[in-house]
């Protein structure tokens, strides 16, 4: 895939959409009316393009999904990898609920993060699971078929969800704690930073949703958090981590990442306490 663009962000965007075009076309042709939706969410939709770019996709099919259908999806992903990998472009894919982070190896690094659902699977995500998923749903680009919420349903976010369920604040604190055991900071500092960024920004989305705010981009999310949580002691921290992620300079510096582990844990501990006592008018 030879790019004609000098601006790396524009070039990356072009690469991603060419790949997505191929993926969508192939899957719609192969799966026919068994395919209910291909939807893009996350930082690609909000145009926060970096040299390591997560491309998050929901692929939803009618239940039950057969082995042949899974094979079609797998073959298509392999074709994407083969067709779009070149000297300066790395393509990795993984099917997984939860974060998928890759380190920067080439000039352009695309992490194709797929979640495959049948009808009941998407109901789980839409109806109850996490406020985080509900936030994804609010900024979604449908590449084929219906919006996931039109298939799976929609519910409101409650304070109970934000404080107790999977993929919300307590879960995200545990995620960082357990990641310290998983990933050796000496060799995987970038992956650790990716997890910290995911945990901090996701907890901010959770907190904002429970106060009735739905942020679009991550940039909007961090500035909205400063405005809405004026009396929260660590309100500036999400912006700090967002800025560092966007300029990508210090991610290999293990001392800085170590510092972020400490700060992110202090942030999540304090946010959990703050939200426990939150009654909607803490700032008044």
């Amino acid at each position, binding site marked *: 895939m030879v790019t004609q663009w000098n601006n790396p962000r524009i070039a990356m965007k072009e690469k991603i959409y060419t790949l997505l075009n191929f993926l969508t076309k192939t899957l719609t042709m192969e799966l026919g009316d068994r395919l209910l939706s291909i939807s893009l969410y996350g930082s690609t939709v909000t145009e926060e393009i970096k040299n390591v770019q997560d491309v998050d996709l929901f692929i939803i099919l009618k239940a039950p999904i057969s082995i042949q259908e899974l094979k079609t999806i797998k073959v298509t992903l392999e074709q994407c990898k083969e067709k779009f990998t070149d000297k300066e472009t790395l393509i990795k894919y993984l099917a997984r609920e939860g974060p998928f982070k890759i380190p920067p190896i080439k000039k352009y690094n695309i992490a194709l993060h797929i979640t495959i659902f049948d009808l*009941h699977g998407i109901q789980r995500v839409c109806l109850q699971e996490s406020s985080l998923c509900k936030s994804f749903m609010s900024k979604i680009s449908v590449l084929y078929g219906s919006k996931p919420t039109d298939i799976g349903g929609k519910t409101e976010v409650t304070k109970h969800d934000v404080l107790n369920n999977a993929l919300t604040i307590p879960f995200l604190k545990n995620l960082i704690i357990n990641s310290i055991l998983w990933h050796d900071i000496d060799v995987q500092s970038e992956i650790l930073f990716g997890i910290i960024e995911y945990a901090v920004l996701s907890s901010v989305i959770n907190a904002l949703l429970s106060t009735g705010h739905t942020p679009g981009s991550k940039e909007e999310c961090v500035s909205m958090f400063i405005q809405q949580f004026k009396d929260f002691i660590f309100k500036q921290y999400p912006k700090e981590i967002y800025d560092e992620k966007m300029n990508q300079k210090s991610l290999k510096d293990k001392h800085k990442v170590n510092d972020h582990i400490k700060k992110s844990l202090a942030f999540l*501990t304090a946010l959990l306490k703050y939200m426990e006592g939150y009654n909607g008018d803490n700032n008044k």
Partner: protein
Amino acid sequence: METIINRIMYAIKSSLKNEIHSIYFIKRDDLSFCTLHNAKIFQFFIIINENVDIESLRLLSKNLLKTREELKREGREVDFIYGEDTLSFYTHLADKADAISGITLWCRDVINHLLLSSDYAIMLKNLSYHGELLFGNRIISEWKIPRINPWHCVFSFYDSLTRYTTYLYELYINRDIEREYPLFNCCGLASVLQSIKNILLIKNVYVQEPNEIYKKFCEYFPNYDEKNTLRHLIRTTKSQITRSKRVYERSLFLLNHLTEYLLSGWCYAGR
């Protein structure tokens, strides 16, 4: 196996010292029934201070690696996995471990929330009943956890039918079914057995052993109409797993069928 458990326990205690509130231990014989190399599976759940010093976590990571190396020199392969997802244990067994130990850290301030969570309810119910408190205070006890209902079994984030189904789909995409058929068979079998075991919690019935799980399920849910397929699948746990996709395929079928069964409300017509 006792030596391995004691050595891991020592690594945990000597690294985390006074950061620990409680250590729960659970033998997962229900997951070890058909493992690739007759490996044993167990899990440690460690509840630690809310403001834990990350240096002690790093020390724990180092000491666990050290323990692993020592055991390896003695001819025993132990693998560690961190976090709550049980089916991911099998992907580690492909590396020919003799034992897999899950290590999960939970901060004290997080526990009160987990106890109220619908997503963690099944996991905590099983832990409170089958788990052993090795150290500290009994922070997790059965009466603090909500009663399990069909909704938990279908839709919760951990240990539910829809979650296991998604996991099996992901496995197909990420791994090679032609080359890693035992892995697919183990994951398929385990997800069905775990689901049945969890559905029995609706009736407040706790079982671990595969045949017992099947027997109790037939007793408490007599109107479930795919009992034969289920029996065939469970029989596989006793036999050599063959080179076929049938177990994986049957498991997907049963997970879907059980989901429909619970959603239809028929499960309430049982005993």
